[in-house]
């Protein structure tokens, strides 16, 4: 049987998206299920990411599994010059599943080829972070009760933001989505994703101004503009404060509309938005744990 790795969001079919959603809802009802009893999960964080690691490790613990691994490469043999190949070869002999985060792009796909056990990608540099996309999807489904006919606004850094690219591809599997992109010139949605939408006859609109147009939104997906993405620091200074969401801007938005953000935020969502019932980003983070339980159960054929 084929190993159920999760490296890129497109590794899953539409049916698998729906299965993960069902399982996540089940884990939300009952997070403590002893499905991983007697199993060992390797949690390999070649670069630190406390938020993602805690979410995964809590998911594993709630499923009764044991965790081996490291929280950053500094404390491991990696600093002694061991290749990713050798680390993965060794670990896949010990563990039943590997969760990994690595700064280099393509590292997770390569690890999956080397490993004899399934690999879940918890982020490979600026490339993919598919468990984030699945938790975003679960948050959309929970707040909208459907994946069909949704008007999804993506705001901020649409050029380098891997989460918006993956979400766009996944949501394009469902009926009649509309996308609205709000970004400065420097950070527009890349042509290859717009071409992807055009090829499928999916409507999208591009805006440079953050205006009342958001009154059409069902979902507002905010992203942070990261300084390290800019080669020219002046360019960053010019755009960093352009797209800040404030509570006053939400007055005319739809009642079902919810605001998502992959967190951590910097200043792109003003704190006065937090108390608005349309702010969903903190619940979204909690949904990550249920979604990761679902992904682990699916990867090991436990459900």
């Amino acid at each position, binding site marked *: 049987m084929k190993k159920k790795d999760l490296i890129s969001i497109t590794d899953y079919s539409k049916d698998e998206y729906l299965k993960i959603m069902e399982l996540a809802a089940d884990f939300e009802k009952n997070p403590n299920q002893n499905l991983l009893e007697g199993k060992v999960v390797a949690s390999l964080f070649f670069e630190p990411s406390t938020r993602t690691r805690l979410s995964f490790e809590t998911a594993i613990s709630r499923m009764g599994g044991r965790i081996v691994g490291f929280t950053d490469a500094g404390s491991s043999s990696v600093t002694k010059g061991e290749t990713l190949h050798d680390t993965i070869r060794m670990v896949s002999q010990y563990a039943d599943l590997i969760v990994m985060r690595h700064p280099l792009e393509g590292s997770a796909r*390569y690890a999956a080829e080397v490993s004899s056990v399934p690999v879940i990608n918890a982020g490979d540099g600026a490339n993919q972070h598919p468990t984030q996309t699945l938790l975003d999807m679960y948050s959309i489904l929970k707040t909208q009760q459907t994946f069909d006919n949704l008007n999804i606004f993506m705001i901020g850094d649409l050029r380098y933001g891997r989460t918006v690219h993956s979400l766009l591809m996944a949501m394009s599997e469902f009926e009649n989505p509309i996308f609205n992109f709000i970004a400065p010139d420097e950070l527009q949605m890349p042509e290859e994703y717009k071409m992807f939408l055009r090829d499928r006859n999916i409507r999208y609109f591009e805006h440079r101004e953050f205006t009342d147009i958001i009154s059409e939104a069902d979902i507002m997906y905010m992203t942070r503009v990261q300084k390290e993405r800019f080669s020219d620091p002046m360019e960053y200074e010019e755009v960093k404060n352009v797209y800040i969401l404030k509570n006053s801007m939400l007055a005319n938005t739809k009642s079902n509309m919810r605001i998502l953000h992959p967190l951590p935020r910097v200043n792109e969502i003003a704190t006065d938005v937090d108390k608005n019932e349309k702010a969903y980003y903190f619940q979204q983070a909690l949904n990550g744990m249920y979604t990761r339980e679902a992904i682990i159960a699916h990867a090991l054929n436990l459900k």
Partner: protein
Amino acid sequence: MKEQKKKLKLKVSAISQGTVIDHIPSENLFDVISILELDKTPNMITFGANLDSDKLVNKAIIKVSNQFFENDEINKIALIAPHAKLNIIKDYEVVEKKVVEIPDQVVGIVKCFNPKCITNAEPITTSFSVISKSPVALKCKYCEKITNESQMVIK
């Protein structure tokens, strides 16, 4: 000058059995030799570079005795010698002509242009799907980034 050319022609021509690969850009001659592993062949090879050609100002030619190439093998050079033409020689006669075609998958040969790609950090055979043949665009199986024709570097 004319005499010299005539002499060169005599030197590189006339193999009894084998393959003549013509219309190679001169600057890529040695890459073609290494991709086809002609640097390891026990067969006699002769080559000439910087010859006149209608299509290429500087073209190179390779003649390999007693060796014939499968299409899969020869198509590997299409990325760097897209106009290459092959003459298959038997008993001093051209018995077949072939052109090269860019394959749908490129394994090895090209480096991924992305400095943050894992294939540039560890000894990994690169692998690309060809998403466009003219101009060439290669999508890395690992980092999923696209290497364009202008960014292509031979490994």
